[in-house]
């Protein structure tokens, strides 16, 4: 086993520990909203912040870890940079935990300017949060650049983006996973650089006392946050492109349509973030319209090329169903269903009724939890099983998948229904007029617990293979 593979095993352990803890935080949030745990109610917003930053971060690094490992089939990422990514991420997480638990920092995962400076938490916890993000951002930027370097060593940029397929040539062969990873990493570098800019502006205000423009800061923040979340999703899709054909016994290759599709995604993902600013009426109208066009446009390559392609791959294939292939197939369904919720919300005239209601966490939980998470944990199981080669307990694997699906979609349903009624997201307690929001929150805790149970079964199945793989490591 090479060092990149051993790094991946570390990332699996980190994900396996952090994810259940973050699920528990999610259950805590919904329990407080349901009217329970009253003595801990004041921890709601700090825990909401930790849950949000944590989930976005965990799934970004998990997807990056999966892709780093997958790329070794074609290129050579630097193992040392992979190790630096682990250390940097753990350091950033440590700082984050300190600012939330000791400083009660609670400005939310996207730290909308100028809230970090104007909350009830002490200034030092804001500084610690910014330092934490700086460490994470710098680490992830380095990691992304190293993967791009590795790709660039074997392919030219035009080849990695499959432009020769647009001209009708199919040599050199570029696997779809390399194309999608390249697209995602370029978008990722852009996102992380914008993160650097927004952090620099925060530091300037902090130390020089100059104030920033709230609209500009919001634009940069959402360019960073939206793009990072989207590219994380695409990294998961890259893993599916790479692995699902192994189970279907059929190839899934790059062709002209796939090349056009993913090059369009690169352009679209960079401007779709405008939909986060629909309710800022002072934003120029043309940007709002571009936001809706880009949001609609992003659905077309996803649905017509990737999801259709995946369904075609599986249709009447001699499919080998196990935990990996089941989860990846379910992940595509989650991506599609979450996409529908997202497209509805990205319509300006609908957004005015849904913005910042529970409809928003509804759709991003759908494509993150039932989409990306399923894809990545499916891939992790696939890797562990390849290394351990243990007999599989199909019954247990189906139980794990079933519990996670029932739990996840139950959680989402509670979000969607309450969101349609206008129940706000990020309320620790609902006002009398919207008190029925508590009923949905209470039901959601039960579904989340079912998901957690399913994930524990998954962990048991994957964990024993992981242990064997670790023992086999040099």
């Amino acid at each position, binding site marked *: 086993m090479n060092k990149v593979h051993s790094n991946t095993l570390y990332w699996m352990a980190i994900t396996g520990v952090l994810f259940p803890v973050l699920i528990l935080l999610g259950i805590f949030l919904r329990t407080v909203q349901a009217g329970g745990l009253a003595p801990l109610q004041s921890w709601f*917003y700090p825990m909401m912040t930790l849950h949000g930053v944590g989930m976005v971060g965990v799934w970004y690094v998990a997807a990056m870890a999966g892709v780093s490992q997958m790329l070794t089939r074609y290129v050579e990422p630097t193992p040392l940079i992979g190790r630096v990514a682990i250390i940097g991420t753990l350091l950033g997480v440590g700082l984050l935990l300190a600012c939330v638990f000791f400083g009660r920092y609670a400005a939310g995962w996207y730290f909308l300017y100028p809230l970090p400076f104007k909350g009830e938490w002490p200034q030092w916890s804001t500084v610690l949060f910014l330092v934490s993000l700086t460490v994470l951002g710098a680490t992830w930027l380095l990691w992304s650049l190293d993967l791009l370097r590795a790709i660039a060593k074997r392919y030219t940029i035009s080849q990695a983006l499959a432009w020769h397929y647009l001209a009708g040539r199919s040599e050199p062969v570029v696997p779809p996973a390399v194309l999608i990873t390249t697209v995602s990493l370029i978008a990722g570098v852009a996102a992380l650089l914008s993160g650097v800019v927004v952090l620099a502006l925060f530091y300037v205000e902090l130390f020089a006392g100059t104030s920033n423009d709230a609209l500009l800061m919001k634009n940069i923040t959402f360019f960073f946050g939206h793009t990072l979340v989207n590219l994380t999703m695409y990294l998961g899709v890259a893993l599916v492109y790479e692995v699902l054909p192994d189970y279907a016994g059929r190839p899934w290759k790059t062709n002209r349509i796939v090349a056009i599709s993913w090059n369009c995604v690169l352009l679209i993902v960079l401007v779709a973030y405008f939909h986060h600013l629909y309710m800022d009426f002072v934003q120029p109208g043309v940007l709002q319209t571009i936001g809706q066009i880009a949001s609609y446009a992003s659905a077309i390559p996803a649905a017509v090329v990737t999801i259709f392609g995946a369904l075609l791959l599986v249709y009447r294939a001699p499919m080998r169903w196990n935990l990996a292939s089941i989860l990846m197939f379910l992940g595509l369904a989650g991506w599609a269903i979450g996409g529908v919720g997202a497209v509805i919300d990205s319509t300006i005239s609908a957004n005015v009724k849904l913005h910042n209601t529970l409809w928003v966490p509804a759709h991003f939980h759908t494509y993150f939890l039932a989409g990306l998470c399923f894809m990545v944990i499916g891939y992790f199981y696939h890797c562990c099983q390849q290394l351990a080669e243990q007999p599989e307990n199909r019954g247990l694997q189906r139980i794990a998948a079933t519990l996670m699906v029932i739990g996840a979609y139950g959680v989402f349903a509670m979000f969607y229904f309450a969101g349609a009624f206008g129940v706000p997201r990020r309320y620790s307690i609902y006002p009398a007029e919207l008190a029925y929001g508590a009923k949905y929150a209470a039901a959601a805790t039960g579904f989340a617990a079912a998901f957690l149970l399913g994930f524990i079964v998954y962990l048991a199945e994957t964990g024993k293979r992981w242990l064997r793989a670790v023992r086999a490591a040099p």
Partner: protein
Amino acid sequence: MRRIVLFAAAALLSASALVHAESTSADGQLLFEQKCTACHTIGGGARVGPDLQGVTTRRTREWLSSFIAAPDRLIAARDPIVMPLLKQFNQIPMPNLALAESEVRTLVDYLEAEDSTAAAAAPPVPAAPMQQPSLIAPQSTFLTLFLAFTVVIAVVFVWIGLSTRLPASVDVKRAYGIRRVFFIVGTTAAVVLLVATVPLAPYARAGARADRVVYVAARQFDFVFSDEPITSAADLAQVPRIANLEVAAGTLVEFRVTSLDVTHGFALYGAERQIIAQTQAMPGYFNRLLVRFDEPAQYKVFCLEYCAAGHHLMQAQVAVNQQERIGP
């Protein structure tokens, strides 16, 4: 003559005392709003810190003054009143606001005046939880559309998954034909939806004229309504506020919404307690939100952009009354 002079002097003194009392109260209110409302209310319930209604009856004036002037000193001295409060409010200490002695005095005077007013008034009745209403349009359409698409996607995935029980080769050319149709239908639907929905965007056009303009200044954690712009905390003392916003049914109101601190949301919930319109309240900008209030009811405003510990308490009301009949 001497009597008249004495009477005039007494009247002058009383008048000046009255003016002084009023100005002290106004100064106190302003100071309270600028320094205290982020964490405290008076009769509005606990936020980050306790509700201060009745605080002057629970604590001595001396203790209150010393705590407001230097809370950090009392915390360091492990004051027996402060420590249980600190525990109750999750160890979030009150910061030292570096207030001048005169400001502390003004604040304590204001709290005392508020307590004597509250003592004369009837106690507030907490709002009872309300039943869930029926879902209104267009929200019901969004939910129905979403559920319909979800069912279709689920059916397709189940069908494809089950198809693997009978493996067979696939006619790829035919599949690509289906994909072409899928692409054309999907793209056409997207374009039609765009053309149909973009003109429905809620943005006020340049020449749009409303029946009434209301300025809204959002701040942690309430909304201030006024007929004049409020662009800074200092304006709060200069600009007359609308204590109870009332409009006649059928009125087209333009809300010019800004914020005095962080970004807030300004979401109007109608008679069915569901969102009818919203915009953001952003520091440094005025967002123009035009709303026609068709139905007489008590409309609520909630903040929908997370703005710190009192976010869920941030609300206001708009009373929409039956339009008065003109003529006999």
